[in-house]
């Protein structure tokens, strides 16, 4: 549905995005993840025909974004970073205007509006001036605008900004419900959002794609060892050294609280059983034993901080699994 090949965008000497290539299948939800200024908005603007790429081609539904921009625009629903609403119009007037610009009129417009208003629960504010609505409502009006003509492709630039937690969950549900029938690209820097709604994640940093995969596989690919956390009731003074003696254990770090240890073992070796037996035999009082998986957050930080991509992962367990050193530093 969306096919982007080697697009580069330069503003003078500044390169905003550099040879970005990705594609989105029909019905797929793709998250664009990256720190501020990574090039997410630039990429979206190229896809929505707001501006052309300096190099490379972008195609939406088989139409070129430069040569056949009208066809592309008809098939896209776009929510820019700032909801594009006119404050002097009411919600109904605004959506009518949007529909008219898209050539929807008469009963078709009425039913499209009703559907859009219903989907985003704007019924109670439909006759109010947008200028008097809260940020969350404006954001939803912006989304209603993008969904109005039921486009096959949706491009949403940070769709949940400014919403309260309940609304965020509702919008995520909405986006999930669009999957299958719509192709969606959404940009975000909220990581759980990407995990919650997207089948695939593209991590972009400094204008380049540094990783592209499913959220689960991304964390799996970046993980170099299994990590286990164990909490003991009565840990011995040399607990670290004793635990290290268990065969298969690569390393042991002290955890956040007194009785907690973080244990690293080789990839593919789950030593929880051995550790449990060892601790019980020693009668240290086993309180908790769990594996620690790498969250998308860790993956993201690692990729965007080192910008080395998946091919050269650095060995830094602190970054990957354990926020503990920084927490200790912060404590008085």
């Amino acid at each position, binding site marked *: 549905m969306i096919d982007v090949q080697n697009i580069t965008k330069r*503003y003078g000497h500044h390169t905003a995005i550099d040879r970005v290539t990705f594609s989105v299948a029909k019905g797929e939800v793709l998250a664009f993840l990256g720190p501020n200024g990574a090039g997410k908005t630039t990429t979206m*603007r190229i896809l*929505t*025909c*707001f*501006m*052309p790429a300096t190099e490379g081609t972008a195609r939406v539904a088989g139409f070129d974004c430069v040569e056949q921009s*009208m066809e592309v*625009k*008809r098939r*896209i629903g*776009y929510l*820019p*970073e*700032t909801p*594009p*609403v*006119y*404050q*002097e*119009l009411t919600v109904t*007037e605004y959506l009518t*205007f*949007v529909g*008219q*610009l*898209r*050539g929807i*009129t008469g009963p078709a417009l009425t039913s499209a509006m009703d559907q859009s208003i219903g989907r985003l629960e704007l019924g109670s504010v439909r006759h109010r001036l947008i200028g008097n609505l809260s940020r969350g409502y404006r954001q939803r009006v912006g989304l209603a*605008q993008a969904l109005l003509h039921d486009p096959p492709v949706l491009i949403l630039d940070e769709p949940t900004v400014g919403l309260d937690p309940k609304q965020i969950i509702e919008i995520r549900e909405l986006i999930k419900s669009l999957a299958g029938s719509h192709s969606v690209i959404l940009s975000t820097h909220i990581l759980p959002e990407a995990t919650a709604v997207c089948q695939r994640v593209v991590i972009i940093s400094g204008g380049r794609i540094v990783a592209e995969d499913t959220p689960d596989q991304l964390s799996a690919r970046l993980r170099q060892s299994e990590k286990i956390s164990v909490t003991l009731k009565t840990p011995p003074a040399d607990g670290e050294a004793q635990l290290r003696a268990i065969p298969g254990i690569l390393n042991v770090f002290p955890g956040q609280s007194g009785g907690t240890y973080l244990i690293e073992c080789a990839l593919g070796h789950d030593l929880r059983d051995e550790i449990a037996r060892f601790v019980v035999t020693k009668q240290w009082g086993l309180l908790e034993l769990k594996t620690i998986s790498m969250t998308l957050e860790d993956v993201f930080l690692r990729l965007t901080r080192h910008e080395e991509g998946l091919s050269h992962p650095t060995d830094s367990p602190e970054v990957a699994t354990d926020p503990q050193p920084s927490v200790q530093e912060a404590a008085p």
Partner: protein
Amino acid sequence: MTPVQAIIAKELRGYFVSPIVYVVGAVFLLIFGFLSYLYVEFAGAQAIQLMQMQGGMAQINLNDLVFRNLFASMRFVLLIILPILTMRLFAEERKLRTFEFLMTSPIGAHEIVAGKFISALLIYLGLLGVTGLVPTILMLFSDFDWNPILTGYLGMALLGAFFLSVGLFASAITENQIVAAFVGFGTLLTFWLISGLGALLGDTPAGQIITYISFMSHYEHLVRGLIDTSDLVYFGSGLALMLFLTHRVVESTRWK
């Protein structure tokens, strides 16, 4: 409703919701009314003088004494007021980030420019229509020739349309409304002042070209009751050029 009509409707609503149209309309009509009153008073005073000198009824030409002066004075008023009417049209869209929405809607830049220009023109022609009250009222008390008044109105309509297109262009190049208004004033004032330069250079080719570029002589002809094709061509081509430039500026955001 076509996209252009939708934009016109939206812009008209924007005008009436914001205070701009009320303030601009009130000032425009107040000045028009006040100037009409002044010129009619002068004409009356002159009539009395003439009566005292010649005795009996004196023929007063309202066309010369009132309307020509009135239309000539309106140039300056339009120059000040019309850029204020157009300043928000594009600048506000850029500021509020709705410009991106317009540009990613399946409509051409020419439709956006046309819709916005027509909405401003409609407001202006509406105001001009209200000023028609002045000659209508004067008609009840005096006799005058309507033809030069109609050409004067045609002149005001053409001059106003040209001014609006300059203002629209100024609005398209910035996201600051104040800057847009001042660029509009500045451009129009330059068009005005170069007529002085043209007069200074006199009957040389350069002088003739500069005089032609300024709107002064073209407007003057219409106010005097002269419909000359070259004047109509001047306003038509000036308008087309400014709208074309506006279109290019709006389009060019895609190429930056």
